């Protein structure tokens, strides 16, 4: 059994790897600490050791053990920091080449998706806005999808567990992020920032499709919005 949900993004594996790297450090530290805590409880309990030794711990030869442990801890912390640095930069910055652009707007209590119109440019008059609880976000497989996150009312948070991606959406700001999803299917989008009574129901899906299917979906949007597009 995998403790994480299935990963379907290009950068998700780095998050999982990071978890196991930290887990290795934590496991070692836990076992050592547990020994340091439990061993004296057996070895130096009142029955086994009726007389305590007078050690203030302020002498260098005693306190050095604490210092050694702290240096090791600090060292492993910085190893972790070093190892995670690339992944952070990758997830939190947008790649130079954006294959697809899309707008995601949070509103109490749904996600609204904005696709560029036939001109291919987002935030122009011919954009197609899909504001419907039952319509998922359609994206093509293995493409860099760059999205602009906005909120119309309160703070929400866009969470796609299968991509290991999360981003708070504060009203008044636009955050640009990206993902590249590598497996066709339907994945939960949830809101992870409490946003009101139907916060629990603020769920939608990402639909990862083949290039053809995706094109077909976008075309169907254009036809449905035919008149609006023509007016441009």
């Amino acid at each position, binding site marked *: 059994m995998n*403790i*994480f949900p299935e990963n379907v993004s290009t950068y998700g594996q780095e*998050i999982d790897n*990071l*978890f196991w790297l930290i887990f290795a*450090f*934590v496991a070692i530290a836990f076992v050592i*600490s*547990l020994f*340091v*805590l439990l061993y*004296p*409880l057996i070895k*130096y*309990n*009142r029955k086994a*050791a009726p*007389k*305590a030794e*007078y050690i*203030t*711990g*302020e002498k260098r030869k*005693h306190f050095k053990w*604490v210092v050694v*442990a*702290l240096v090791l*801890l*600090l060292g492993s*912390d*910085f190893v972790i*920091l070093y190892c*995670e640095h690339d*992944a*952070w930069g990758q*997830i939190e910055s947008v790649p130079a080449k954006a294959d697809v652009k899309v707008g995601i707007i949070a509103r109490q209590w749904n996600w609204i998706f904005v696709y560029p119109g036939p001109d291919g440019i987002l935030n122009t008059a011919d954009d197609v806005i899909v504001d419907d609880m039952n319509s998922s976000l359609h994206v093509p497989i293995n493409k860099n999808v760059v999205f602009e996150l906005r909120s119309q*009312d*309160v*703070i929400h*948070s866009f*969470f796609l*567990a*299968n991509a*290991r*991606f*999360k981003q*708070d959406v*504060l*009203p*008044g700001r636009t*955050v640009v992020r990206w993902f590249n999803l590598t497996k066709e299917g339907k994945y*939960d989008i*949830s809101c992870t*920032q*409490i*946003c009101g*009574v139907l*916060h*629990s*129901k603020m769920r939608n899906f990402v639909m990862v499709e083949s290039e053809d299917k995706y094109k077909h979906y976008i075309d169907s949007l254009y036809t449905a919005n035919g008149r609006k597009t023509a007016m441009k």
Partner: protein
Amino acid sequence: MDATLHKQSFWSKYIFSTDHKVIGMQYAIMGIIMAGVGGFLAYVFRYNLAYPNASIPLFGHLSATQYNAFVTCHGMIMVFWVGMPVLLSALGNLLIPLMIGTDDMAFPTVNMLSFWIFFLSAVVLLASFFVPGGAFGGGWTMYPPFSAGGYVNHNPHFFTALFSGVSLMILAVALELVAMLMGGINFVVTTINKRTKGMTAFRVPIVVWFINIASVIFMFSVGPLVAGAFMLLFDNILGTGFYDPARGGDPMLWEHLFWFFGHPEVYVLLLPALGVLAEILPVFARKPLFGYKPIIYMALVSAVLSVLVWAHHQFVAGIDPRMATFFSIGTILISIPFAGIFLSFMATLWKGSIKFSVPMMWVLGFIGLFLIGGLTGLFLGSNTFDIYAHDTYFVVAHFHYTLFPDIFFGFFAAIYYWFPKFTGKSLNAGLGKLHFWLTFFAFNVTWFVLFFNGLAGQHRRINDYSDFSLIMREPYITFEKIATISAIILILSQFIFLYNLFTSLAKAKKGVKNPWESNTLEWVADSPPPHGNFQTYPVVYHGPYEYSLPGEGADFLPQNVQGKNDTNNVTQNNYEHKTATSFATHK
């Protein structure tokens, strides 16, 4: 100076008392009552999580609005109305004057005022459940613009806005902070000015040091939050727009103000409890505290660092990604002094002669649980892993593994240890051990399984997961049930404690002065100490942890007893004891 003689009416003795011990107990009792409220809320929403839409015994059906309000108030209450009064106010009031060898706080009337403002704040908070719309349900972090009006009450009138759940909660928090501020000033002034003869800075017990450091951290970080809270209140009742971008504000401002206080607050809660550990460990290991001075220095370093890490709560909030590394490094650095303090505590056990008394068991349980809490913090201090884990049950489990031992194990350790001093009676040890083991196991079962739910992507503050395929599968559904059943056992176990408390209080006073054979000054006073504490002020000859000192007859050497190595020439305080005579005029 016979303090027991002067007559006081019931009101001035137990209700509007200026005696630090009575005020300390008032804080402790209020903390226990509020813990009951917070625990009941937890029971209700945990039941709902395991059995969605079921009718909850002792409550009934829980709506989504109520769920949100209950989760919010549970967090609020446990931090501000249980952790703070119990760890900072109760311990600070009960212990500081006795441990530094004086009669009372520097400002007894301010102290009384502090408690009554605190009491008022609790009343205001509880009242918010009964206003139209009910208590606020936007999370204990109260992020605007959700909490900033308009979305809670559409187009409200002034009074409707004022008597809304959100406004009352803001007011209650602001009042609570004012009360704590008064207490904090009192602790610091008392410790600096009223130490008895010979009680130099480095002879002051760790718990007094730590309560003082916690107070200073609190005073340093609380200002921006109080200001921020009033801005939030104005957004609600006056229609300003400090946090609402629709009216020219920015919600990120609140996030910064909140966490600039919110993170240091963690240490405000942690330090006094660590102080309790430092007092109890040497007594039951019969060995000096390992590294008394380094522990103080490490706490001072952590106090400075504590105000430099707040934005690690905002890694995914949209702050500049480059800023995250700075706050990650800060978070790593601040874990070091605390790891050092815990290691020193564990080192105290080595080559000791350990007695598993009830207070000692709570202390050891505390260290064990905090080990898990601290180490899981390593995952979250990493800004990259936090992208995934933020606002999932992994975070919730992590902070329960730190705050639960901190608040409850710390408090229970303190109660079982100091109960004989403040009542002259003793708690039943068998029931104490039963209470400990049930609490320890039930807590672990409840929260350990939820780490896995978090890793599976379960996000928090959701009353109904039926829409989420990642959560609505095994073993996570079963884990929810296990957590709930075990949480109910955890809550029920606390009745053992209450039973023990009341039956012990009903017993006759024995008045044993120093049952654990401890060194600190509170054990020199009578049990319970009379108003004014000491018949004659004790004189201090050495530090607080002289256990098993070779060459002494007994394996402990109270601070007021001159040891073979102590000079007759007691180090003079810069601050001569001024209150020795002023107490006489008090009666």
